[in-house]
């Protein structure tokens, strides 16, 4: 690259050149706003000539309507009090009824007697940045609207709804919650919430919640909470983590449902079942006892006709006389029918 000619270099670095062609606008005005000097950069941006501004316009004349009021009400008192203002966003009016956004810094120049004699201001054009800022502002407003929408929706539904931050701190409870627990002068403060839990459960529930938050896992617990009557009732507390696209937990959505009646019914059902079971087991054991008695008392009744039959059969084997045999057979028949009656009686008893 060719080195600059000494003359060129002198010109480019001269105070005058730097002032007029600085990349930001520079304007100087008296305490009452009368502009006495303005650089080329700002003139080019505004689209006016030096003659149209110097001695003709006041600083607030080049500002938009809102800016004029803001300058008088806010910026000027602030400038006077602290001697400077930084990064105030003013819209600078243009000839053709349009405007460009700018950031203005200004300082007060004081005379030997401490009185303000002039104000120097730099003006930075921020058209693109402003668009970006407006986008940001709009997103912020949208997010705020979403939040409000969520809150009003959650206030309509009859359930208790709450949310917590990623770290587990409760940051919202719907109106239903406050209606339900208004007696306890509750707030989302941890200490106030803990008071609602039954003393026996507090530690355990707190531990469970800390664990769930740590592991990012769904939380579910049945707990006893103090109602306005002072009595404790059963509630089912549930919470699920809400994750952002990066799979990080952003917040927790929680519910809290009164399940007291259900739990009490369950408890009653279990109690009834226990009672039925013990009754059944009593019945079974008494039946067993009856059977034992039957077996004991009946065995010899069976045994008697059976012993007769065995004895008579032996006699049949050893006796050859037909008449005697006939008598034995008749007795056998009698013993067999006795045995039949006895067995029938046993079956009937059982």
């Amino acid at each position, binding site marked *: 690259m060719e080195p600059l000619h000494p003359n060129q270099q002198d010109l480019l670095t001269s105070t005058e050149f730097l002032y007029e062609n600085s990349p930001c606008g520079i304007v100087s005005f008296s*305490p009452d706003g009368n502009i006495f000097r303005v650089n080329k950069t700002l003139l080019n941006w505004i689209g006016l000539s030096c003659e149209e501004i110097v001695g003709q316009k006041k600083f607030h004349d080049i500002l938009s309507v*809102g800016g004029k*009021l803001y300058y*008088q009400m806010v910026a000027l008192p602030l400038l006077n009090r602290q001697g400077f203002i930084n990064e105030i966003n003013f819209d600078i009016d243009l000839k053709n009824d349009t405007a460009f956004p700018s950031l203005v810094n200004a300082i007060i120049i004081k005379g030997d007697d401490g009185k303000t004699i002039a104000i120097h201001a730099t003006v930075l054009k921020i058209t693109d940045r402003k668009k970006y800022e407006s986008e940001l502002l709009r997103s912020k407003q949208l997010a705020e609207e979403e939040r409000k929408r969520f809150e009003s929706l959650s206030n309509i539904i009859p359930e208790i709804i709450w949310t917590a931050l990623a770290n587990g701190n409760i940051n919202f409870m719907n109106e239903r919650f406050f209606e339900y627990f208004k007696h306890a002068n509750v707030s989302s403060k941890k200490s106030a919430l803990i008071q609602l839990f039954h003393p026996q459960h507090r530690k355990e529930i707190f531990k469970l919640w800390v664990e769930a938050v740590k592991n990012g896992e769904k939380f579910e617990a049945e707990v006893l909470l103090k109602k306005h009557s002072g009595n404790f009732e059963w509630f089912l507390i549930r919470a699920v983590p809400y994750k952002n696209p990066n799979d990080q937990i952003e917040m927790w959505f929680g519910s809290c449902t009164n399940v007291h009646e259900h739990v009490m019914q369950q408890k009653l059902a279990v109690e009834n079942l226990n009672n039925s079971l013990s009754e059944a087991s009593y019945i079974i054991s008494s039946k067993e006892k009856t059977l034992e008695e039957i077996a004991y008392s009946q065995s010899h009744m069976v045994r008697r006709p059976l012993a007769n039959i065995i004895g008579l059969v032996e006699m049949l084997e050893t006796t050859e006389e037909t008449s005697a045999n006939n008598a034995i057979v008749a007795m056998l028949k009698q013993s067999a029918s006795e045995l039949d009656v006895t067995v029938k009686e046993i079956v009937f008893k059982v």
Partner: protein
Amino acid sequence: MTDIIKRNNVKIFGNGEKVILFAHGFGGDQTAWRYVFDAFTDDYKVILFDYVGTGNSDHSAYKPELYNSLRGFAQDVLDICKALQLNQVIYVGHSVSSMIGLLAALEKPEYFEKLVFLGPSARYLNDGDYIGGLERSDLDALFEMLDHNYLGFSQMMAPAIMGEKNTIEKQNELTDSFCAVDPAVSQNFARVTLLSDHRAKLPFLTVPSLTLQCMDDVMAPETAGQYIQKNTPGNTYLELYTSGHCPHLSSPEKVIKAIKDYIQN
């Protein structure tokens, strides 16, 4: 009494008998009188204060429902007069504090000897033949500016200690500690101030008053000052021949002279 003194950050200077009470305007605090109050301390007892919600006042005492009209701010003035057992006070109010002084003097005329309105307006918005100087769209543009510069506005509300030379570091420190001021509070103050209409109350003022009118004041044009003069019994109208809405900051010597001329004659 100490509660009110603390609540409104009341400061008392000078050894004079007669009391002169300075009430700051929109968006500022008592430090707005820094170039003016010194000139009165030889002959008067000078009292400065911050309205609740501004400067070094007790911000926790700010209740939107109390300060949703200028009546709430007038109560601050009356509370201070009562707490300090003031009577026959010379009251100097800048901008919106002019109408706050009017409301206070309508309620307790015995507290006041004279009222000085610096850049007053009974109604900022134009209304038929009445020229307040502002259209509704101008106000919307201002509210938008406040939205875009709310940090600057908080700086505006930041406390600065009177009579002490603050280094820039110290000032920054104070400003930083104060940026937490809810922009909604300042927005509310702006709305209460700028949407108010006190024209109907002017004819009932029994305390003598002075209107100090600036040239080229976007907030309170000459028509607004003239309206007050015409409709307020015992009101004197004086042009200050200085421009802008804050003459006590831009031309303090003119303001001092005008006030002295009025109250000493």
